[in-house]
């Protein structure tokens, strides 16, 4: 089994969690308090991740599908595992569509979306075919690049004299908006989504480090999200930030330094490449690994091509227009998919697992006596 180094695991996690929000903005409906939502979301993300890790700690060395089987038996566990697979595939398709829509709105308005989707899926397929270790290495490299670009962007934006941090006031005045953007969206994405990683915690080389790496990445990603939100609000003001579908892009477009660096639009295209790749790849990989252990296959690569085609088709036919897509994404998906699969079921699994181990321990102790 391919192994992931510590930095590779963290890089994958951070790029996965931060990825799309560098473009789409996070919790923009909370206006100037978006950074606060990011912070709260990070805290809830820490709890969720701890739950996921606790599940893994009960069954070290197993992936999530195997854990589900162990918990609920082969039949029900397999069924639930299949639910996750379908969910991951669906979410991969959703993310793909998100980026496809973004590219066709912003960069290539007349290009058929299918071409864009195909290109993105192809890159993901190519990466996964090379193996998760290679993807991890790409992530490692890209994380440095990504942080470098974020830093450049921040310097240029603040250097352009556009940022006005007064826009962040008043803090937490509209508590309703904060709660609304936190529940369910803020607590499930992006940190809840890291349940996809539960499929390959066992592939981290330093097993003793997994917990630390998870915590580190959640805090790191949370802080990055928070500072991005702070910056974007300071540049666009609360209303423009909240109304804009792509606030981060609009923010980056404001850069103007010395009449030469007129816009950093090129950065956005790079972000799109990085973010889309890692988000889709991780979901696809989890689905593929899950499928291979569900169907007891030797190699996850066997399912890659059908999986890629499925993701491509799903993303093409999942919704007819961007508004429909966004509407489903904001109002249906969180309640139907994310809350049960990211929160309720893992807690259940953890509960049953802990009950059983306690039972077993009691059993063993009784025997010893």
């Amino acid at each position: 089994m391919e192994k992931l180094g510590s930095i590779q695991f963290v890089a994958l996690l951070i790029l996965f969690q931060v990825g799309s929000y560098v473009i789409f903005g996070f919790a923009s409906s909370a206006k100037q308090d978006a950074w606060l939502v990011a912070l709260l979301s990070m805290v809830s993300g820490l709890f969720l991740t701890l739950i996921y890790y606790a599940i893994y700690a009960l069954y070290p060395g197993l992936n999530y599908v195997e854990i589900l089987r162990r918990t609920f038996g082969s039949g029900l566990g397999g069924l639930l595992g299949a639910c996750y697979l379908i969910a991951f595939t669906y979410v991969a398709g959703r993310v793909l569509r998100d980026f496809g829509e973004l590219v066709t709105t912003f960069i290539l308005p007349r290009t058929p979306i299918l071409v864009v989707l195909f290109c993105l899926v192809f890159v993901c397929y190519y990466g996964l075919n090379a193996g998760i270790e290679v993807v991890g290495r790409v992530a490692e490299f890209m994380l440095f690049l990504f942080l470098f670009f974020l830093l450049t962007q921040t310097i240029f934006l603040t250097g352009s004299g556009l940022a006005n941090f007064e826009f962040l006031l008043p803090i937490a005045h509209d508590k309703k908006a904060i709660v609304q953007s936190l529940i369910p969206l803020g607590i499930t994405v992006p940190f809840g989504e890291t349940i996809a990683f539960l499929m390959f915690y066992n592939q981290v080389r330093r097993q003793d480090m997994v917990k630390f790496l998870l915590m580190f990445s959640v805090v790191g990603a949370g802080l990055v999200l928070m500072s991005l939100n702070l910056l974007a609000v300071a540049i666009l003001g609360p209303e423009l930030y909240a109304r804009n579908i792509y606030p981060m892009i609009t923010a980056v477009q404001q850069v103007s330094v010395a009449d030469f660096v007129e816009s950093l639009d090129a950065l956005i295209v790079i972000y799109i490449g990085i973010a889309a790749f890692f988000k889709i790849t991780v979901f696809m990989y989890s689905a593929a690994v899950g499928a291979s252990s569900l169907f007891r296959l030797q190699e996850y690569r066997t399912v890659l091509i059908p999986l890629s085609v499925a993701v491509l088709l799903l993303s093409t036919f999942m919704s007819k227009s961007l508004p429909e897509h966004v509407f489903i994404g904001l109002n249906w998906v969180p309640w139907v998919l994310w809350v049960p699969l990211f929160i309720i079921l893992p807690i259940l699994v953890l509960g049953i697992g802990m009950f059983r181990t306690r039972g077993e321990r009691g059993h063993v102790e009784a025997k010893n006596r």
Partner: protein
Amino acid sequence: MWKRKTARKHQSKQHAELLNTEKLKQQRLTSSLQDNLDSLKDLFGHSPDLITRPFPGGMVLCIKTIVDLKRMEESVLATLQDGLRLDKLAAVELFRVQDQGRAVQELLEGSVLIFQQNAEEAFAIRIGNTEHRAIEEPQTESVIRGPRDGFTESIDVNLALVRRRLKTPSLRVEEFNIGEVSRTKVQLLSIEGITSSKLVNEMRQRLETIRIDGIMESNYIEEFIEDSPFGLFPTIQNTERPDVISAALLEGRVALLVDSTPFALVAPLTFWGALQSSEDYYSHFTVATALRWIRFVFLFIALLFPSIYVAITTYHQEMLPTNLLLSVASAREGSPFPALVEALMMEVTFEALREAGVRLPRPVGQAVSIVGALVIGQAAVEAGIISAPMVIVVSITGIASFTIPRYNFGIAMRLLRFPIILLAGTLGLFGIVIAIMILMIHLSSLRSLGVPYLYPVSPFSWQGLKDAVVRVPHWAKNRRPFLLQSPSPLRVPAGQNPEPPIQTPQSDAKGGTDT
């Protein structure tokens, strides 16, 4: 880590049939002098340069074109006039030959075979002519500061050049004869105690599995031992410089000398290694670091500049500053071709020019480049066929591609440019980003003799970065690259950074009162 398909069994029985080397080994020399000579002559097809000379009690056999005739006369034939007396033979290399296979081999190495009447063995004295090109400055890797000697076509001279730099008994030289017809000498160099034995074994194993008729140049070997044979990027370094080989050996890498070519091979090679020049180590580290960064920047320019130009002018006009945009627009006004076609045309022309410059004799080559670059470029712009910005873009790209120290790496970058231009022309910047992602995945999946190609950036290694992204001073480069798994990783003991003396005589004399 050492993932490699070892199962490379060869079913090529014809080769064995053709050459009969194994069979020849079985054929022992007989006691009949004439039989021995006849069978050897038959083997060589009575070649005119295979000559025999009698001496009292025997016969001398050699290939006159490859032996040193003067030495043959003076030290062999002259002594033999009194019959064969081993103690009188002034020879450094003297071997007993007992079978035909060995006899053939010795003859081809430039030995003189001495056959005696009624003896079932012969003696071979190696007096092959050691004529070789004088040691010259390497043509492909010139430096401003640094040693000026380069490898020649003679493997012995090449090994001597390395030995002269590494005066240690631990220098291990393993010799292979590769090529069933050519029997080319290939020497695997490593340093016992520094090079990981895994690396040496791996290399040895790869060399042993090569079955080919002949080796004309080290690239024959390179293509057999690469980790990913279809990649554009070189995963094995070639060099003409003995100092590069020696430095690589000191890092714990392995080197291959191949006879009859001045290009030696070094493995493993990483992406960053391909961007380094030997001169980085001979100039001050700040300068070297700055130069490395310039190379990184120009690497991107070489790879992406024409594509970015095409993408931005045909897809993302909003990304240019207004004034620049208007200048470009006015320069492109009236230009008949789309930017994509223009870029492809100019890039292909540029590559053709470069190729023509290499192939032609040097003085003509220069003329071609000048005519090509200046006259065609100027004329094309003035005639309004090509827009001026495109000429600028192509020239800068050309210059950028020549800043890459490794020629074959530069070629890889230049070739990759074309698919990227096409992608940029169809999908704009998005296409470029897709291309870069694919390229990154490809680079990350490459390994050179098991070492990830992008090491030390990914997988990340702090120690490794000291000699990749920057070049730290020699006293701070404490460890050998981690992934080479050298048995003695410590290279330079820490704490050797020079400092001004704490108290100099002068500061004692006058500095005392100052404070």
